[in-house]
């Protein structure tokens, strides 16, 4: 077991962190909480690598001429920024860190359904990351994260194969995580924990897992087909050998559109938890929010063609995809309204996690609404492939998802680490992030409508003012991300020790010590209360109607 400890620990003081300090106990762990920490460390590292590329991009874009780095180098920067951020940060982030840590505890189980597969999942992520980072340091890849042939199969002279292999392997990590969550949520709920009592964080991750298992394998086979084409010069995408490049786009987006819901749904789940905890109130419309997650997952599989409105695909296909893209916005809107309504007559505390939740609600609303601009056929013809799209997806991914991730990390930090983070610095960092984010990305809507295409190393001079604003914002945003890194690390040693339930929140995770013991619950809990039961038994239900 453990090697040396400073003083003997009593049974009560043993938790999942201090029960064993050896390397083996960490690298061969099957404890879902330790695996969550392993993921936390890895994806934080990848986030900053991706962020480094973003910094270099924004530095280059300060001036209209391509004068900082060469064309090829710049093309590698945006490709690698996209690949690392999407496949190695956004897709795993909340599920692999917060989901892994919390889902067993939230359903009342001692671990996930398949703990060893969970560990395998992390190792696959690491192997995938090694291949991709290997490609990066060997010279990089310049196809764009979308890998469109014939450029990626026949014309690119960069490390496409190594990168595609890294993404392929990381995809299996994602699939296994989803598989684990599905089995856990179906079969490992404690007695009394019915589906309608599950925290919405669990519902969101369940919907995410459905997408992971249905969509990711299609990406896998698409990358394999692309690899065969690149290696053997035979295949189904290159028109000079009888293939069709549009087929690649269909196969690719069949996964990659649902993938964006893999990225946002867990974030929405976090926001449901934050809004309820910091309003001390039951979520408004539990059933609607839960089913909205499922609806997003299902409809999300039916809209991929909206990435291809200008490719020459049939105009009628365009109509179908456009209509469904509007449809998928409805459940997202329902969630935003329900979160807002939850705050009505709540008891609202302005702690840092709630600040991130406010930020999410505002920025996701903007990001989601700009998605409607892109779903509108005639308008999309003008704005697609411009910075308008770049701004849209950064609003939902960074203004949405990353803020939800930070909010969740702050909310559950006491549970994960047993320490409180410094609230003053945390609030400050949240404001810096919000301000920096908006300054970075709002100008991009404007410059995109003006016609600045994306993936441009050099651009027309009249776009410079807005680009300078954007780069200035990026420097502030970067600072905003560095501050939590520092104080979270600081808090591990010097932060105030946390009680089991520092926020006064409702949920099974707040009934176990901070940090939890290795097996979560000495005895399996029996659940007799509703989700978000903040009210007292003698309180009548208040009708809200119109």
């Amino acid at each position, binding site marked *: *077991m453990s090697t040396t400890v400073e003083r003997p620990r009593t049974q009560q003081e043993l938790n999942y962190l201090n029960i064993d300090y050896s390397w083996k106990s960490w690298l061969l762990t099957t404890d879902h909480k330790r695996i969550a920490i392993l993921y936390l460390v890895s994806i934080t590292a990848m986030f900053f690598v991706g962020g480094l590329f973003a910094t270099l991009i924004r530095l280059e874009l300060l001036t209209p001429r391509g004068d900082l780095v060469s064309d090829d180098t710049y093309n590698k920067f945006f490709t690698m920024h996209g690949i690392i951020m999407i496949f190695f940060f956004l897709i795993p982030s909340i599920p692999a860190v917060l989901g892994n840590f919390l889902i067993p505890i939230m359903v009342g189980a001692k*671990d996930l359904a398949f*703990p060893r597969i969970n560990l395998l999942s992390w190792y696959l992520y690491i192997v995938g990351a090694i291949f991709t980072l290997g490609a990066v340091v060997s010279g990089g890849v310049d196809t764009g994260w979308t890998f469109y042939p014939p450029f990626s199969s026949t014309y690119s002279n960069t490390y496409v194969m190594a990168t595609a292999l890294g993404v392929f392997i990381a995809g299996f990590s994602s699939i296994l995580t989803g598989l684990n969550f599905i089995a*856990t949520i179906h*079969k490992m709920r404690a007695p009394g924990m019915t589906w309608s009592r599950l925290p919405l964080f669990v519902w969101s991750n369940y919907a995410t897992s459905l997408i992971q298992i249905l969509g990711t394998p299609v990406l896998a086979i698409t990358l394999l087909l692309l690899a065969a084409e690149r290696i053997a010069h035979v295949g189904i995408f290159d028109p000079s050998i009888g293939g069709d490049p549009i087929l690649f786009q269909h196969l690719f987006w069949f996964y990659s559109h649902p993938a964006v819901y893999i990225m946002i749904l867990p974030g929405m789940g976090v926001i449901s938890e934050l809004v309820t905890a910091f309003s001390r109130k039951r979520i408004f419309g539990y059933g609607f929010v839960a089913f909205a997650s499922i609806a997003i997952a299902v409809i999300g599989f039916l809209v991929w063609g909206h990435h291809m409105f200008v490719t020459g695909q049939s105009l009628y296909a365009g109509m179908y995809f456009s209509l469904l893209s509007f449809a998928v916005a409805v459940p997202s809107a329902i969630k935003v309204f329900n979160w807002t309504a939850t705050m009505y007559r709540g008891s609202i505390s302005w702690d840092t996690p709630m600040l991130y939740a406010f930020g999410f609600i505002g920025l996701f609303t903007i990001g989601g609404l700009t998605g409607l601009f892109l779903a509108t056929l005639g308008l999309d013809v003008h704005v697609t492939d411009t910075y308008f799209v770049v701004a849209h997806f950064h609003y939902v991914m960074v203004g949405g998802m990353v803020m939800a991730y930070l909010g969740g990390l702050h909310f559950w930090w006491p549970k994960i680490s047993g320490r409180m983070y410094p609230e003053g610095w945390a609030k400050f960092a949240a404001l810096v992030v919000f301000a920096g984010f908006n300054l970075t990305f709002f100008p991009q809507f404007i410059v995109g409508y003006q016609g600045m295409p994306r993936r441009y190393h050099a651009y027309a001079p009249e776009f410079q003012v807005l680009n300078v604003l954007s780069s200035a914002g990026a420097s502030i945003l970067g600072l905003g991300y560095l501050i939590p890194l520092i104080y979270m690390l600081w808090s591990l040693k010097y932060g105030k020790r946390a009680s089991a339930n520092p926020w006064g929140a409702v949920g099974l995770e707040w009934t176990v010590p901070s940090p939890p013991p*290795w097996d979560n619950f000495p005895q399996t809990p029996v659940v007799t209360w509703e989700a978000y039961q903040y009210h007292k038994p003698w309180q009548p239900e208040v009708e809200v109607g119109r």
Partner: protein
Amino acid sequence: MAVDTNLEEIHGPELRHHFETPDQQVETSTIGMWTFLVTEIMFFSGMFAAYAIFRSLYHDAFASTSKYMDVVVGAINTAVLICSSFTMVMAVRAARLGMRNMIVLFLILTMLLGLVFLGVKAYEYHHKWVEHLVPGFNFHYEEAKYERHAAIFFFLYFMMTGMHAMHMVVGEGLLATLLVMAWRGRFTAKWNTPVDMIGLYWHFVDIIWIFLFPLLYLIGQRA
């Protein structure tokens, strides 16, 4: 680091610590394996979709390839796989009855049948190689007008049957593991989940072949 609980004494060492009852463990494994098979279906579906599209675009070229596909050999392979699914079912049954020797026998039979399939496939691949029907390696098609599109057919043929064969090789590895465990008497009437689960996987691999065979071998046979 295992903490002994009463459960282990009651239910035996196979019950992992995070499950309450053996039934929960079996049900969880089952749902896990079925979910995994769904991912496998989605994995193959990309290739089936590509096949469907090119088949409808290049109908005649695809139909013309059937004369280079040996239906008899393909049918033999199909029969071999179906038999191997049967022997696998028998192995699962034997496991549920705790009959060690029967489990071993039927696992060996299943593995042998699987190896026969792979051997026949290797023979077919070699034949195609000799006939210059491997795209990218001196591909040459007799009916020149169909050559480009036939190359797409054969590309998909090799990708789909190749992926399938890879899954069979993995299956053979899994069966070998089961064989070792069965030999050591690990499977009893009370606990035989791995045999069950790998049986599901084996049946799935069989079903994929049942779809591949008519699509790849039989389309133009009538003409």
